[in-house]
């Protein structure tokens, strides 16, 4: 561990990779990384979203290849860019994608 870090008496190493910090130090570190809290906007989107709208995207070849990796050995697209005019629902489709991803993880964990 570096000298700079051992100088902080409120922190101690819990593994090779992480350091447990006092709550105050943790919040200072997070605020130093960024003062922004996009989770608030995310919560608004979740509450306004209508189930079922935008589900078609999950069935597209582009989404499946991006989410699962290209299973046919072609170019692996690690970025999916959804574009459209204002008001077509891009933000809400993005939320659907996140929800879908989390659902799949829960299913995998239960096996």
């Amino acid at each position: 561990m570096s000298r700079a870090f051992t100088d902080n008496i409120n922190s101690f190493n819990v593994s090779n990779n992480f350091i447990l910090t006092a709550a105050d130090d943790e919040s200072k570190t997070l605020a130093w990384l960024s003062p922004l809290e996009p989770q608030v906007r995310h919560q608004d989107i979740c509450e306004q979203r209508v189930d079922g709208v935008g589900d078609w995207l999950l069935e597209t070849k582009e989404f499946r290849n991006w989410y699962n990796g290209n299973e046919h050995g072609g170019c692996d697209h690690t970025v999916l860019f959804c574009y459209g005019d204002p008001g077509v629902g891009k933000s809400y489709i993005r939320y659907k994608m996140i929800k879908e991803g989390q659902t799949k993880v829960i299913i995998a964990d239960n096996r």
Partner: protein
Amino acid sequence: MAVACFYYDFASPEAQSPTNMLGSLLKQLLPVPGAIPVEIGQRFWGHKKVIGGRKLQLPDIVKMFTSLSPLRRTFICVDALDECVPKHLLEVLDALGQILRRSPNTRMFMTGRPHILGAVERKLGGRTASVPIKPRDDDIVTYLRARLSKDTTPEVMNSGLENDIMNSVHEEVSETYVEVGAR
């Protein structure tokens, strides 16, 4: 699996600087609540030792991303890229490209208006697939039904009025899209 998201907004151009944007993604991806990765802690305490503190730099954040669990599947979502101020956009796309190169289990989902597509493809090259988002008939019907079900004055609603609303809004949205699409 980890997911981080960011929403650009025209109303906050200065607050949504590239360092603040990427820093907010980074802090959503910290894998252990209550514990800070050594790489990030070292940099934080190192910066604090400089009088007045040193401002976080973009290359620092890119390096810190790669210190997170490299085997974990990670999804980074960025909404409304077109609302990022132009002087920051290329810088942000460059940084996201570097993160992708160094973190093979990371995938990114982005949205924006069509005129941003060129910048995304130039900066992220062959890594990018793109999908046009259009209002679909069944989406419009589902959305309208959901909104009508939350009507705060249901006593003035009847099946005739509901059908009129469904038909007129549906036609209006379809015509708007045809006009926009024909430009």
